[in-house]
């Protein structure tokens, strides 16, 4: 089922949680709502579920306005951040709950319920835990039971609030892969909220980046990572070096140094912020070079496949820190040493004017 969100606005007192949000979630996709805490992503998820009501705007489920539909009738599956398993019920009873709450006329027989519960528990590979209580389960198991419970009512959409937030790193990775696999089997329209960029990029078909109640960018993981639309996205996804400077013809002047920049339509003299990922910076050791930003190597870390070089700015960028990633071979060829003065030349530079508009 498709979900559309139209001009949603939500205010908590004087705090604007969501500011005129409009989004389309196509049928069958797994979408991540990604952003820092307080960006409004959980509020949006709860509004889609019907657990919260927007001050204005619409939620369309399958093209129909759901604003007047109670959460009970929306047929959404919701997985709560802390799972909200009923602690006094066994795993079996938790999963069966939704079916047992149906009016007598629609309620499946106990046998049907039993079969369905076991089917779901098999799906999440935890059938052997049916008689346990939530307190006897590990975090990852609880997470999967919560999912099975949500699926038991055959929801048209699945909404997950920080599904891996409360788990430790190893379990989190496993469950991520597992959720992706499950989604590929079920193809149910799903939205999950996360503040973890790696999680969003790895699991989702499409990522919605949010900040301060606004949507910053929507796209496939590759699109948003490779072509960040705003400085916020640049800074939020992966590590990045940024430079404050001014446009001078085909270059960006940062202090006394100049960085080369491909053609653009920014005015001469415009104040800009320029971004480059660590692997998009080249280290030039030639003392005679004039192009690039002067910096001093503070540390060289070369224990992995790639080497990482940490540098401190000098001249106009004193006090700033930069990070460069390069192959180990390249690092060895350059013979970098701590304290050495070098220049940083970006192979690719993204420039935004101070208002955040891309050039």
């Amino acid at each position: 089922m498709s979900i559309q969100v139209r001009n949603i606005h939500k205010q908590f007192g004087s705090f604007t949680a969501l500011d005129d949000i409009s989004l389309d979630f196509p049928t069958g996709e797994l979408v991540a709502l990604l952003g820092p805490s307080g960006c409004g992503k959980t509020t949006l998820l709860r509004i889609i579920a019907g657990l919260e009501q927007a001050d204005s705007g619409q939620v369309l489920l399958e093209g129909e306005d759901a604003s007047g539909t109670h959460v009970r009738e929306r047929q959404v599956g919701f997985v709560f951040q802390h799972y909200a398993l009923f602690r006094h019920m066994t795993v079996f009873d938790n999963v069966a709950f939704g079916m047992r709450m149906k009016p007598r006329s629609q309620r499946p027989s106990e046998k049907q319920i039993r079969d369905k519960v076991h089917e779901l528990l098999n799906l999440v590979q935890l059938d052997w835990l049916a008689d346990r209580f939530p307190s006897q389960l590990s975090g990852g198991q609880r997470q999967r039971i919560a999912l099975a419970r949500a699926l038991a009512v055959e929801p048209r959409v699945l909404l997950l609030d920080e599904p891996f937030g409360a788990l430790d790193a190893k379990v989190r990775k496993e469950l991520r892969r597992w959720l992706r696999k499950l989604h590929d089997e079920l193809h149910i329209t799903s939205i999950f909220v996360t503040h973890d960029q790696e999680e969003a990029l790895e699991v989702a078909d499409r990522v919605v980046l949010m900040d301060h109640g606004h949507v910053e960018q929507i796209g496939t993981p590759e699109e948003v990572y490779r072509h960040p639309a705003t400085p916020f996205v640049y800074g939020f996804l992966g590590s990045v070096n940024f430079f404050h400077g001014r446009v001078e013809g085909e270059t960006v002047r940062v202090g006394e140094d100049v960085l080369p920049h491909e053609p653009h339509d920014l005015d001469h003299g415009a104040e800009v912020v320029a971004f480059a990922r660590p692997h998009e910076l080249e280290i030039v050791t030639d003392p005679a070079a004039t192009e690039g930003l002067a910096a001093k190597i503070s540390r060289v870390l070369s224990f992995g496949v790639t080497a990482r070089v940490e540098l401190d700015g000098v001249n106009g960028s004193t006090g700033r820190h930069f990070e460069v990633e390069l192959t180990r071979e390249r690092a060895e060829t350059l013979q970098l040493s701590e304290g050495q003065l070098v220049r940083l030349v970006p192979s690719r530079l993204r420039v935004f004017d101070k208002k955040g508009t891309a050039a």
Partner: protein
Amino acid sequence: MSTTTFRVLPGFRLTLGYTLAYLSLLVLIPLAAVFLKTTTLGFEQFWSVVTSPRVVASYKLSFGASLLAASINAVFGLMLAWALVRYSFPGKKLIDALVDLPFALPTAVAGIALTALYAKNGWLGQYLDPLGIQVAFKPLGVLVALVFIGLPFVVRTVQPILEDLDTELEEAAASLGAHRWQTFRHVVLPILFPALLTGFALAFARAVGEYGSVIFIAGNLPMVSEITPLMIITKLEQYDYAGATAIATVMLVFSFILLLIINGLQAWTAKRTGRDR
């Protein structure tokens, strides 16, 4: 996060409506009757009732004995709570359970039992009398009864805070060179203090209004050992409703002020210890 107009969970109007109706009918409206009845007295009449010498003597006894009893309970209640939390000794669980006895034991029963103990020929009275200490039928008896009913308030407010106390705090103090007493005085006591004060205030509030356990042991001599609640009963028995109400008003105003103070203290405890209520 929640809104004022939209509620996912059911039953808000029903339960809040019922709560307010029940509260108003049984508590608020009857209490308002006290204040309305008082207004039928002129101010001068009201003043002469509530400042008549016998009534003033009862204030002195009620408030004085209650303050003293609450202070005694603060000291010994803290010690008892400390012993229950920090030490292991045989019968600890039994004693822990029995601390609540004054909550559970009907006040009239406590009253006659204390009287029997402290009468001249009673278990304790027979030893105190030769020393010239008379408890039963004297103001001292009032104090004893008020100590009895107030003890659990202090123990039960201090105990949970003591339980939650992180041993690392005291270990840190010790590693910084503090002696045991210094640690208690500068680290433990400041954390306990709001709770201790709350317990004190609760015991005090309860003591001021207490009736059942006191009247048997007090002797109820006018100007000497009459407590304020008894003055209300006395006026009622003389069908002096306005007079009874006037004294009740004074007590109520006092209770409300105390209630506000206690609420503030509990908020302070919560803030100081990060504990709810």
